[in-house]
């Protein structure tokens, strides 16, 4: 029998706690349609969705930019679950169709074999609830993880009351738990307009939609302030109390309790990217999206994508049936995602907002709120302030290209400044760091490399992350490094020649 290094994963097994034929991640329109279609075709389906997420998690702006504008209702776990189930009739339909639907269950990682991994038994998903995590093996996985909001730093944006449109719409329409009466919306994208209309219908007074450009991108009956610059959010103990704009006719002040970011809606590709599915920037589909083949499959065998995580555009935003149709096709491996007509240049649009609101800010707000990193610190690749390193003469005259090379990567910026390395896992600043990287290196947004996503794609307590089962060989041969005794042999007692036959066997311990 072939000898295999027992300190390696060769020969180790990955204990799976359960298996299914199809796993669907995300119970939005696409995920529900996928799961129902597969179940109706006789396929064994597990559908997981992290919602409703715990109130404390919402408070960390995970997984959406809730901006602290949840009502007390979110603390009632049972009522939130009931509200979520009632919010979409397709959920009951899924139960009736025999879908094994688990709410409050998140997927923190997807794994398959690839160029540098060979010990997965097939597609594997890491799942968790509030108590434990476990592994599920599936023959096929449909990722339908939806959308989230791009953050935007401006003076005062760290206060409660600044939030994302998707977060606001979810709280208002799914749970009736949005603590907002008077709101101003930044952006006039189709997503901003559609969201503002839903919020207005839910009783939120929409004072205005704000546009940096001369005219709104999307027609709307709601009031629009064009050619405006966000000056600051004012606030008090309850967070935002007013938004001040600079426009052609001077300063305008809106008394409001909420400022809703609707300038960039982003496909949630965290699981797809961390599973090494090929991602490409498509300005017509909302930015970085998975590259899909005609069956809706990603570049990684066994993983498909559908719904908003595969691309966002106006028609899809307005009509959930578009995502649902994608979900049905992806579940059955029978069709591609629709291709939209590009309505506007998201690259120039998002850069315009960052240039105007963030680079134009007067108090240097934190772009990365978790790690407290400003735009200037990102552009000058400054070490974090807690290191206390004095500014070096001439540093502020160097641009990103002279500091990091011709094609600076947001990953370099992250590791050196820590922007995006915090608890919210970069969800509030990722697109801003990419935009600043583009602005700082004189390139366009679509040419900026994608900062890597990593599992777990949700913060996971160590005690929850601990495995339910562990391979006996891995447990018996767990070593701090490679388990090579010769590696730690002191240098004054090494043999003259090394041979495999004469190698020192056994565990060494780093000592």
């Amino acid at each position, binding site marked *: 029998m072939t*000898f295999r290094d027992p300190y*390696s994963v*060769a020969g*180790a097994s990955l204990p799976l706690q359960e298996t299914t034929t199809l796993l669907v991640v995300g119970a939005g329109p696409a995920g529900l349609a996928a799961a129902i279609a597969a179940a109706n075709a006789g396929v064994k389906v597990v559908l997981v969705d992290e919602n409703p997420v715990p109130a404390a998690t919402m408070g960390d702006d995970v997984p959406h930019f809730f901006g602290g504008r949840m009502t007390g209702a979110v603390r009632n776990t049972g009522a939130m679950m009931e509200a979520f189930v009632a919010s979409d009739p397709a959920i009951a339909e899924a139960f009736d169709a025999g879908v094994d639907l688990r709410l409050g269950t998140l997927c923190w990682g997807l794994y398959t074999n690839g160029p540098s991994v*060979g*010990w997965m038994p097939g597609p594997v998903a890491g799942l968790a609830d509030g108590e434990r995590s476990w592994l599920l093996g599936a023959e096929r996985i449909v990722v339908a993880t939806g959308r989230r909001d791009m953050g935007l730093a401006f003076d005062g944006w760290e206060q409660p009351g600044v939030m994302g449109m998707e977060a606001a719409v979810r709280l208002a329409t799914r749970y009736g738990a949005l603590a907002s009466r008077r709101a101003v919306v930044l952006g006039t994208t189709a997503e901003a307009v559609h969201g503002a209309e839903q919020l207005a219908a839910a009783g939120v007074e929409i004072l205005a939609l704000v546009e940096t450009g001369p005219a709104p991108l999307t027609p709307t009956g709601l009031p629009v302030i064009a050619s405006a610059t966000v000056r600051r959010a004012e606030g008090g103990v309850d967070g935002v109390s007013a938004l001040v704009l600079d426009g052609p006719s001077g300063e305008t002040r809106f008394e409001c309790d909420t400022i809703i970011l609707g300038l960039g809606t982003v496909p949630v590709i965290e699981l797809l990217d961390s599973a090494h599915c090929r991602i490409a920037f498509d300005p017509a589909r909302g930015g970085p999206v998975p590259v899909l083949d005609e069956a809706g499959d990603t570049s990684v065998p066994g993983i498909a994508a559908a719904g908003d995580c595969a691309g966002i555009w106006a028609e899809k935003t307005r009509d959930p049936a578009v995502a649902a149709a994608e979900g049905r096709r992806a579940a059955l491996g029978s069709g591609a995602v629709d291709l939209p007509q590009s309505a506007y240049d998201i690259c120039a649009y998002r850069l315009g907002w960052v240039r105007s609101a963030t680079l134009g800010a007067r108090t240097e707000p934190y772009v990365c709120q978790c790690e407290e990193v400003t735009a200037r610190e990102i552009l000058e690749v400054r070490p974090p302030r807690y290191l206390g390193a004095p500014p070096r003469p001439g540093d502020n005259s160097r641009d990103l290209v002279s500091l990091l090379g011709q094609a600076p990567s947001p990953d370099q910026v992250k590791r*050196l400044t820590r922007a995006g390395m915090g608890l919210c896992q970069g969800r509030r600043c990722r697109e801003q760091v990419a935009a600043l990287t583009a602005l700082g290196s004189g390139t366009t947004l679509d040419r900026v490399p994608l900062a890597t996503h990593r599992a777990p794609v949700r913060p996971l307590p160590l005690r929850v992350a601990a495995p339910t089962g562990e391979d006996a060989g891995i447990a018996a041969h767990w070593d701090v490094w490679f388990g090579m005794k010769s590696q730690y042999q002191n*240098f004054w007692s090494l043999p003259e020649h090394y*041979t495999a036959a004469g190698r020192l066997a056994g565990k060494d311990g780093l000592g």
Partner: protein
Amino acid sequence: MNGASVIVIGGGATGLSAAWWLARDGVDVLVLDKGLVAWEASGRNGGGCSHHFSPLFAEEQRLWPLMDGLLGYPTEYTRSRVRIARSPEQWAQYQLGPTNAARQGFRTEVIDAKQIAELAPLAGPDCYAGHLCHWGGHANPHRTVQAYAWALQDLGGRVMQQTAVRGFERSGERVTAVETDAGTFGCDTLVIAAGPHTGALAQALGTAVPMVPARAEMIVTEPLPLMPETGVDGNGLYGRQTRRGNLAYGGGPHEWLAETGLDRMGLGAPSRAATPLMQNMAARLAQMFPLAAHARLIRSWAGIIENTPDGRPVIDRLPTCPNAIVATMSSIGFGLSPATGHVIRDLVQDGACSFADVSSFRLERFSRLEPDWREQQGWLAA
């Protein structure tokens, strides 16, 4: 040709330190990297600086406290280390380091559970025993390697990123130029410090340097309040509490990979996928630090590193190409890098190392290596 006196292939810790040491001597140096500085294992490791088994240990310990000043950029170096054993079995395993360090003049204290709880409160009150090492310590890998690059550039050295090497020009035995995607660059001396690609590059110059690439994984938590001692490890894990407060740890099984040929450098380089081993590490981290069991894991990642058959460095001239020096640190390169660069500087400039006996790094020790050594050692892909 826009060449340099010395070309270094590999913008990792070893190559950039070597280039920086040479630039300090006024040597015209050019570093070529297929991707980005610090992008591979040099920027992804545990940041440990505690290599008591290496002939470079004393120089490693001498240099680290000086590095922030010498480079002019912060490395986050923090001296000392506490190693905790939660059981008598772990305690028995952890005796090698203090013994090796003592022989080289470095002091280690044995500490009890109460002292551990003071230095590393997250470990709780019930550890078996520990060592407080007045040596070793840790730094931030990515920050340090970028600091080498910036310090090198400050001295006039050049770094070309996204520039994969495709081959060499030779004159007789000597290498005269490096062929890349971005053109051909002449050199008087070549240093190959290209991590897992070092073997293929040396082979292209006629010498086999045996090595196998492997993938290893790490995890990191959200920031926690800083412990009085941040260089804390044990329980089968290596790592540190970062200066920001995150717990960054690794350990456990690795995955051996197929070898990477020269034609696959750049685009075809192995991806750096992580696996569910994140869970196994999380469990051990929670065991080591019971009071951090609530801490939230926010990332896991992997890196690709190479190992020679005995897991020890090769820093040597290639017998088939006398003006080429090959340097692989065999999966333990970051912490030693200040000293490794010094060795390579000495070999290039003076022909011999001035401060340590580096005879154990010679390639000739593998002259009797069996052709099927990889199979014998079981270093097989999964």
